[in-house]
């Protein structure tokens, strides 16, 4: 059962359907993809009692305008984005009930670049290769592999009774996204050394520089600008597998941190690996903003992953209590 929910009046800068991506197909050259800021996407779903991997919208920079074809319960997370419905300013990080027939209008992201709009039940779209996420480069998944367009109608999986409301209902509680997503600047990412060793003081330089995020950054990777770095010795390897979080050093010495849409393989030297828990913050950086690296070990990355998992378990329990249901599984 499916329920038409939104008609797209204006699509926004770049809005696409995402979930947690399609893992397991890198051997076929298929990127993982999915929400660039996984943490915010998971929380948006959990706030509604959805599975963590339900399909939602990723809104980039400027959000869409949507007409509600029926009453809906939604949650907005990720970037701090201006949002209004029926004259009411809508805050993020909580479940919101919206009346049928109104317009849900997003403005621009005030901090961060990617906001997530989840709907109770999750967006109802066919899965392609095990996921509803949009692969924008290869052009499949989501809405036929493309971003949202004016005139699109999005449906949600039917959920138990959606209570009709006359005006937007905003609860007085929310989930605090910090410390897991802290949008204050400069952003800091922990980095452990990779297989390609930097020359002399360049590792120290990597970790002491205020790197500027270049305009060419996108869902594939974050391109950084700063003093050029050099390798201790030439890197002579054919293409090898890479992952989101891999820090590459192209010949111009300007590092690239790979994000979710990165290819399965890469030929550039791998100078480091960013902690998985820091990827959501990196996905929220906008061109011109500043990123600093903090030297770490893989053991440090592990410790932070465990701390994150413990906080997520507490959030799941708290939400289950609020929403009056069993805590959902740990599919995030």
């Amino acid at each position, binding site marked *: 059962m499916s329920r038409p929910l939104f008609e797209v009046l204006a699509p926004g800068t770049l809005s696409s359907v995402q979930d947690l991506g399609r893992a397991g197909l890198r051997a076929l050259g298929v990127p993982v993809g999915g929400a660039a800021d996984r943490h915010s996407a998971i929380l948006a779903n959990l706030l509604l009692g959805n599975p963590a991997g339900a399909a939602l919208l990723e809104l980039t920079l400027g959000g869409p305008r949507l007409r509600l074809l029926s009453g809906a319960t939604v949650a907005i997370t990720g970037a701090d984005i201006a949002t209004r419905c029926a004259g009411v300013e809508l805050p993020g990080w909580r479940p919101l009930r919206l009346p049928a027939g109104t317009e849900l209008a997003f403005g621009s992201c005030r901090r961060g670049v990617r906001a997530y709009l989840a709907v109770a039940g999750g967006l109802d779209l066919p899965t392609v*290769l095990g996921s509803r996420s949009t692969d924008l480069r*290869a052009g499949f998944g989501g809405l036929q592999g493309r971003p949202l367009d004016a005139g699109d109608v999005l449906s949600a999986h039917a959920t138990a009774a959606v209570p009709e409301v006359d005006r937007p209902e905003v609860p007085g509680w929310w989930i605090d996204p910090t410390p897991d997503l802290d949008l204050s600047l400069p952003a800091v990412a922990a980095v452990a050394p990779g297989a390609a060793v930097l020359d002399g003081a360049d590792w120290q330089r990597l970790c002491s520089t205020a790197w500027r995020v270049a305009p060419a950054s996108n869902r594939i990777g974050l391109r950084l600008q700063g003093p050029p770095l050099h390798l201790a010795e030439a890197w002579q390897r054919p293409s090898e*597998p890479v992952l989101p979080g891999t820090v590459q050093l192209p010949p111009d010495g300007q590092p690239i941190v790979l994000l979710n849409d990165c290819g399965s393989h890469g030929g550039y030297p791998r100078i480091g*690996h960013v902690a998985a828990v820091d990827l959501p913050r990196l996905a929220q950086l906008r061109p011109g903003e500043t990123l600093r690296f903090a030297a770490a070990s*893989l053991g440090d990355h592990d410790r932070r992953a465990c701390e994150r*998992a413990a906080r997520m378990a507490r959030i799941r329990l708290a939400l289950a209590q609020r929403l009056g249901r069993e805590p959902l599984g740990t599919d995030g």
Partner: protein
Amino acid sequence: MSSRVAIEFLGESGLLLRVADDDEARANRRIHALARRLPGKAPAAVTELVPAYASLAVLFDGGPDPSATRTALRAWLEREAAVVDDVAGTAQRVHRLKVRYGGDDGPDLQAVADHAGLDPGEVVARHCAPTYTVAMLGFAPGFPYLLGLDPALAMPRLDAPRASVPAGSVALAGTQAGIYPQAGPGGWRLLGRTDAVLFDPARTPPVLLAPGDQLRFEPA
């Protein structure tokens, strides 16, 4: 047999096994033999194996004790890699793809011929002569990196990539050969086009060519 194996970390949730061998085809065969053998016997934490030219990534879910998982998996991978399969005699699928060479389908055929000091016809003959091996799929879904190109045809990629290369374009870059599954930007030299659909997300499996498969080109 001078083939050495080394294992390094690929971030917190990956291991990378590398085969150092002067013979790149032999290194690649060894990778594919491992990629075929390991799935049936991998510990539960292993989520994905990703083969490349001369390396194999083993990705895993670290679980409640990621450091211990990583250490245990590294030891397991070292043991597995110590066994070398005799893969020379293993029968592989051989695909045959018809290619329309030159003209609008292969706008770089003449440039490759000039670079090699050959007629375009000789380039086509030399391109169709070898049996290629799909060393890996990467760059884009279903994009095969092929081993086996005649070194006489080797030519560096374009200085500036084309904004759009048509789907099915049969191409080379340096000593690598490949085929573009979808239209998109690309800097490889285009020799011709095939109508074969290399990647279709609605198909099972979605790719026409699998890593380790063999391939021959024929003029259409």
